[in-house]
């Protein structure tokens, strides 16, 4: 029998306005006990404001927050002492590393010996005990953030809030710090809420992901659900489906739909629940689009794949891991290809493939994708 999931936090009707602007408007949200929830969204989506309200640092203009079923507010000190928050910038107070890690314990009026022992244990756990008496100004970005984490962990919080803890770090430090964070979160018997705008961070750490856009919760689910079954074109776009086409469902044969896109392409996608005539968006992740070379005089792709389109490489951009190609199709008259939109598909291939195929702008290629790789999203 499936165990009932306890909620560490539930939020209902949360609204926050700054002047005339509504920055957060979340109808309902819950955080399960013991889970790691990533709140994912672009800059300015309202993530930090939501974080501050959930962490009882800022009062909402409307709505209720419950910790373990009990309504709580920013004035509820005992509730605030169940949590610990780590901010994007490691805001260390004046004093040594030891002093900083001890602050939260001193707020709780713990005995000096107990404070000392807990601080030493936490610094040791995070591998920074050698920095206990160190000059703050001499610490690196990674060390500062590690001390900021230690300052929160020493409190043994029931709920740990992390606001973009790695975004202030250099790329190489970030990678190492993220690995450490994964280790810390795994060992921690606490509910963790992590704010991030990076998919990789959410995928590496979280058991569930909540996507926020313009202050609203647009999707919440496991990383697999959110990344492979986005519920709308924003989530699809934000989670990396760089190609989004719009069109109308022509047929639906037991879940295999034929969709006529605005650029005139007829594509096939697996979508059991859509009706014929419905307006939909089709999202495709770049890594799901394969390419093969076409001879110059080719009149089109010859392949068993249903979604195989002939086009020309418009741009080829080398990235760290491979090459991102924008492939333009011959569109319906009057339709101008848009980058990643109508009349164009984005494909991501490895460096080895790029070298082997010798693709460059102007190369004629056939791009193909499985019907199951095309995500059909109902238009709002």
């Amino acid at each position, binding site marked *: 029998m499936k165990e009932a999931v306890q909620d560490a936090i539930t939020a209902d009707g949360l609204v926050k306005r700054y002047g005339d602007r509504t920055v957060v408007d979340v109808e309902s949200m819950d955080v399960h006990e013991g889970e790691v929830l990533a709140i994912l969204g672009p800059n300015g989506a309202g993530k930090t404001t939501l974080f501050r309200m959930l962490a009882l640092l800022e009062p909402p203009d409307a709505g209720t927050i419950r910790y373990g079923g009990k309504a709580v507010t920013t004035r509820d000190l005992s509730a605030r002492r169940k949590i610990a928050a780590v901010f994007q910038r490691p805001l260390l107070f004046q004093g040594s590393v030891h002093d900083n890690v001890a602050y*939260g314990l001193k707020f709780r009026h713990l005995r000096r010996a107990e404070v000392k022992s807990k601080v030493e244990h936490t610094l040791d756990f995070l591998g920074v005990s050698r920095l206990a008496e160190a000059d703050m100004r001499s610490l690196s970005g990674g060390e500062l953030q590690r001390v900021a984490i230690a300052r929160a962990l020493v409190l043994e919080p029931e709920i740990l809030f992390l606001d973009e803890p790695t975004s202030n770090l250099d790329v190489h430090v970030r990678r190492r710090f993220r690995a450490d964070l994964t280790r810390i979160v795994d060992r921690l018997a606490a509910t963790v809420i992590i704010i991030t705008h990076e998919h990789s961070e959410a995928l590496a750490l979280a058991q569930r992901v909540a996507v926020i856009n313009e202050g609203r919760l647009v999707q919440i689910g496991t990383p697999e659900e959110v990344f492979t079954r986005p519920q709308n074109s924003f989530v699809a776009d934000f989670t990396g489906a760089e190609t989004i086409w719009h069109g109308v469902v022509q047929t639906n044969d037991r879940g295999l739909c034929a969709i006529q896109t605005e650029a005139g392409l007829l594509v096939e996608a697996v979508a059991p629940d859509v009706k014929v005539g419905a307006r939909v968006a089709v999202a495709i992740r770049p890594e799901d689009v394969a390419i093969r070379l076409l001879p110059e005089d080719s009149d089109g792709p010859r392949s068993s794949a249903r979604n195989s389109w002939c086009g020309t490489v418009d741009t080829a951009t080398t990235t760290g891991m491979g090459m991102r190609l924008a492939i333009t199709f011959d569109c319906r008259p009057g339709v101008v290809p848009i980058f990643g939109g109508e009349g164009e598909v984005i494909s991501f291939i490895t460096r080895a493939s790029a070298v082997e195929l010798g693709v460059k702008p102007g190369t004629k290629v056939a791009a193909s994708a499985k019907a199951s790789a095309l995500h059909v999203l109902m238009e709002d």
Partner: protein
Amino acid sequence: MEVFWEAIRQAVNLIVHGNSYVFQVMWMSLRVAGLATISGMIVGIPLGTWLALKKFWGWSAAAAMLNVGMMLPPVVVGLFVFLLLSRQGPLGSMDLLYTPTAMTIAEFFIAAPVIAALTMSGVASVPKEVRLQALGLGASRRQSIWIVLREARVTIIASIVGGFGAAISEVGAVTMVGGNLSVDGHNMTGTMTTATMALVRQGDYSLAMAFSIILLVLAFAITFILTRTQQGFRRRWLQS
């Protein structure tokens, strides 16, 4: 030039041999300015902190008032306190005019706005997230304000130095409400500034010079101690 050196020579002589009048006046100056600064801190630091942390309707007007208070002409303050304490004034029955208490009140109105305005500026310059971070580690409201004050302490000490400096160098208001009185050579309400002014009028330059030197040394010593404390905080912060 000879008069100048003679005055200095006599002044050093008066100080070295411990002239009792000089010490009475010195003590009066320190007592009045010290009490005014302490009262200014008691009122100014919480007021400046409150204004820095709270935004409310009319905040701009309140902050502007405080800044204006920093530049209050001492004579105006003196007149205000004089009218307040004079026999016909609302506090006339307390019979405080021409007493050290009246002088302390006048100097309080000069020191407090300086302390409040500089504290406001210091606390406001601490990032808002510092307080949120303290709250996020379980600080009570009071503890979180304490953290912010600790972060702003270098500026707060500067505000105390400024307040004390304004109080101890005050002449106009103190003369108006204190009167620079002495009875049978015993100082009643004279401070080093008011006494210096009176002595210059009487042509007693050596004593006036003695007071000026003491005032300078005193102002320097107190400012030095406070600045050292301030630098100590800064150094400890840098080393921590």
